């Protein structure tokens, strides 16, 4: 009985507190309706990511290559050391960039690869800091293969497997060029 009376009183209180709404309120709210309502603007299942990222072409190229190398590594297929996606990345960078930018981007790409190879425990050497980036025959990185040969990445990101003697010859050529 008490329960019912209290509920009845609450209903009466609801009537007593139903007051007129400011007349302009509806119009004010309607004016604020966006021209385009997008169901994906927010929600538990959506995340708004707005990034105004300004980076140089060189950095962008390096980021693209590192991403590709990582993708190649994570998703199997071809090993980063074997080329494949890496080569595609190289072509993409060459396509996107031109001239000296492309040469420098090659050095950056080689450096990214060197860091990756070093992390994987390979006995790898990097010469990118001391070579002329425009020299397509300069050795950027080299590492020893299990069969005794060496894989060499040149300034134009071309790769070759060379013997120890051939590698010495290439390095000597680099030193001569530097001395000049």
């Amino acid at each position, binding site marked *: 009985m008490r329960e019912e009376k209290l509920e009845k*009183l609450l209903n*009466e*209180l609801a009537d007593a*507190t139903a*007051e007129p709404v400011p007349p302009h309120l509806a119009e004010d709210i309607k004016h604020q*309706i966006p021209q385009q*309502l*997008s169901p994906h*603007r*927010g929600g538990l299942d959506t995340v708004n990511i707005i990034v105004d990222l300004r980076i140089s072409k060189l950095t962008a190229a390096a980021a693209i290559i590192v991403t590709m190398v990582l993708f190649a590594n994570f998703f199997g297929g071809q090993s980063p050391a074997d080329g494949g996606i890496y080569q595609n990345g190289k072509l993409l960078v060459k396509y996107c960039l031109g001239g000296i930018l492309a040469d420098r981007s090659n050095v950056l790409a080689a450096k990214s690869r060197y860091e990756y190879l070093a992390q994987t425990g390979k006995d790898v050497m990097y010469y990118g800091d001391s070579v002329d980036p425009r020299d397509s025959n300069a050795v950027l990185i080299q590492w020893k293969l299990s069969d005794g040969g060496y894989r060499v990445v040149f300034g134009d990101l071309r790769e070759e497997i060379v013997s120890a003697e051939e590698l010495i010859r290439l390095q000597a050529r680099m030193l001569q060029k530097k001395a000049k």
Partner: protein
Amino acid sequence: MEYSDSSDKSEQRCSSLAARLRAGNRAAAVELVDIYYEQIYVFFRRLGHSCQVSEDLTQESFLAAWQHIGQLRSGKTLNSWMYRIAGNVSKLYWRGHKDSKAVSIEGFDVPDGSEPECDKTGNSEQVGRLKNAVAGLPIKLRQAVVLHYMQHLTIAEAAEAAGVGQGTFKSRLNRALKTLRGRIISEDGELL
């Protein structure tokens, strides 16, 4: 039978409205405003916000609704969705204005110029006491009472609007009623 028909029509209307809102239809947004702006404004007033604050919070609620339109699942949840947004807007306001609690109780007055229905039935004293008792409830309990008894949401809708399970909501409601009974009970044990 007639009730069932009108209920079906209302459900269909809500489903259609929700579908159009999800599709980004601006006319549906206007319709939503027409349906809810009064309810939401009065909801804020009943929660204890002043007229000006209630006005601002009503506008904020609709702005939040446009931003979270992707969360609207179906017409059945339209009511609770709208009240949940309003409840969150109110909660945020109180979080940022902790000193405004006293004002909110004063703001819970019967509006000037409109004689309450209760006066006609001679219950004004009881309703007046109840008004003060409701205004003195903790926010969560007050919200439960307002949603269910004053905004007339079903237990399921009100629980969803409050962001809790039905069991929790019923428990809050029981605690609120118990507190109210304790505050408005007379010396001889009768409700005043």
